[in-house]
């Protein structure tokens, strides 16, 4: 194999901020202290990731503990990583005041994004990622009108984020209101490709019963990123509308998500990477394995295994 220089690489790898290590009183996340953050960044760098993604709600710790996103990003760089690529906007969806399918809540949502983007403006982000709907049970029945209102909401949000040079991109959790194949298609038919992108989470689509490769192929022109993660279960019955929560509490499994490279995974990552190549995608792929520590798992190991797989399997297909 010939060496590929940095400049020639079409794909770089970012690690999405989910992590637990073991503190003296139980599991802690990397934001626990400077020490735990440094240990986290060292491990991400050691496995060959190029950068990290994060969550919006981390900005408070960036300000409180590091002096803001730019200063925090300096620490990231001191550990040999490039930067923060994407942020995930984890909103408190509520039909009373924050629900994309309900136009009366849009003003509140738009204001939230104006404030949020201002907070992040001191660093350069590629995407702000959103779940584009409330929980499924708060939106059903899913009607064309509701999908249209949602699309209108995100068109406007995307215009705001674009003003900050950041793409608004949608990440369809299997338990959110827009997760079935027809609903996703309808939703995108109403969105403006200039303002609303698709962020393909391989596991979430797979759990919802979609083929993530086919979904990507259909929308490749507006895909602005990926979460490469695996699952061992497709949602059954009412899993996607399980009250009060599907992500952790659905009866089918106590652990929906696994790192790629795990045995018994349902996602065909080789096909996915081939599609990424064939669609000429260049840029970042994010790796995620939220809740990896459940049922005896270990974040350090899951991170190593997933990055091993990226390097030894996926980069042989495209890099």
């Amino acid at each position: 194999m010939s060496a590929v220089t940095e400049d020639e690489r079409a794909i770089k790898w970012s690690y999405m901020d989910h992590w637990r290590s073991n503190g003296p009183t139980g599991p802690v996340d990397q934001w626990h202290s400077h020490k735990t953050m440094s240990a986290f960044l060292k491990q991400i760098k050691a496995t060959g990731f190029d950068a990290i993604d994060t969550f919006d709600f981390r900005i408070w710790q960036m300000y409180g503990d590091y002096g803001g996103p730019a200063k925090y990003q300096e620490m990231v760089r001191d550990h040999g990583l490039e930067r923060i690529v994407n942020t995930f906007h984890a909103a408190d969806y509520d039909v009373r005041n924050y629900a994309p399918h309900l136009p009366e809540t849009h003003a509140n949502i738009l204001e939230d994004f104006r404030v949020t983007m201002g907070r992040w403006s001191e660093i350069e982000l590629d995407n702000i990622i959103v779940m584009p709907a409330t929980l499924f049970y708060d939106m059903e029945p899913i009607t064309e009108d509701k999908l249209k209102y949602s699309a209108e909401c995100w068109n406007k949000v995307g215009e705001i984020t674009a003003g900050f040079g950041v793409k608004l991109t949608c990440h369809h959790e299997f338990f959110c209101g827009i997760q079935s194949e027809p609903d996703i298609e309808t939703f995108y038919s109403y969105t403006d490709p200039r303002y609303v992108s698709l962020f393909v989470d391989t596991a979430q689509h797979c759990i919802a019963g979609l083929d993530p490769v086919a979904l990507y192929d259909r929308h490749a022109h507006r895909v602005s990123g990926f979460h490469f993660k695996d699952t061992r279960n497709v949602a059954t019955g009412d899993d996607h509308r399980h009250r009060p929560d599907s992500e952790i509490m659905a009866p089918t499994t106590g652990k929906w998500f696994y790192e790629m490279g795990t045995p018994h995974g349902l996602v065909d990552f080789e096909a996915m990477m081939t599609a990424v190549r064939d669609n000429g995608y260049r840029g970042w792929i994010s790796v995620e394995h939220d809740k990896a520590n459940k049922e005896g798992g270990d974040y350090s190991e899951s991170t190593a295994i997933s990055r091993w797989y990226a390097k030894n399997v996926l980069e042989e297909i495209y890099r």
Partner: protein
Amino acid sequence: MSGIRWAYAINQWKPQFDDFVRREQHERALKTMSIAGFEGVELTYGTGRWEPLGNPRQLAANFGSVAGFREFLHSCAVDAVSSWYWDPAERSMEELTGPLSPLTEADVPAIVARASRLAEALAALGGSVLLVRPVPGAGDVEPLDDDALDRVAACWEAAGRATAEHGIRLALHVDFLSALRRDHVPSLLDRTDPALVGLALDTGELTAGGIDPLAVIERMGDRIWHVQFKDALAVDDAEEYLQPHAHWTVRVRGGAREVRWFAEPGAEGGLVDFPAVTRALVDAGYSGWIVVESDQSPHPAASALLAGYLVQRELRPLVGSAAPEGVS
């Protein structure tokens, strides 16, 4: 035979927001407490769908009703929720409210209403005490003057009146970061009606704050309505509690030394003399729940069992309370 009953606090099982969400985890935790000899469980207020035991609405969402949760407790051989800990500065996603402060007069009606709802549920769960964080942390508010103490006293007296309507007592839980820590507890208690507001004695918090729990029992024993037995592994002798956001930087992170502050009674390196505290409580005529806790624990089941051993073998004999059936 005293009226002391033993419970265990569930908070140690939830180190991170996405932990301890599933029913089977609750079942295993409750059975562990039960077999370790505890009759009751203390809950901690929480909000949102990943806090199924956090508030009455979540209990209803998860167990059909508050009564449904009590049936679940009974199926795990736990008799009651002894008590509920609530800091009004915690937001409520269910009620779309942000932090509430007893120092802010406009917040008082909402605080009283929330206290009343928690007390109503607690009564249905066999409990007796609502614990509240009476004031914010010392680093997060202006020093408390007489006027501030008057407002705080009025707030909790009103809340205590509301909880009393449900047969629930309201007890002020003064932690080691509290703006009351230094000298204000007596001043605050003196401003409240002893029939409406009591004190929750937390051995670990007092010790971490450099205060001897025995001295508190001696001085304010007649106001003690609730007791928490946790051990302290370190003392904040550098006054780190005066820093802003000490809840995070000092309590969670462990301050400049990154210490672990708390553990279950009997833990190695623990600073609290539990037999002495137990004897002092009996001497002071204390009657009610003693809730054992570790706050957080790397190994919650081990913490509960080790504490259970201490209670069964050393502390319960001092109290003379009857063991739950089957525990010798």
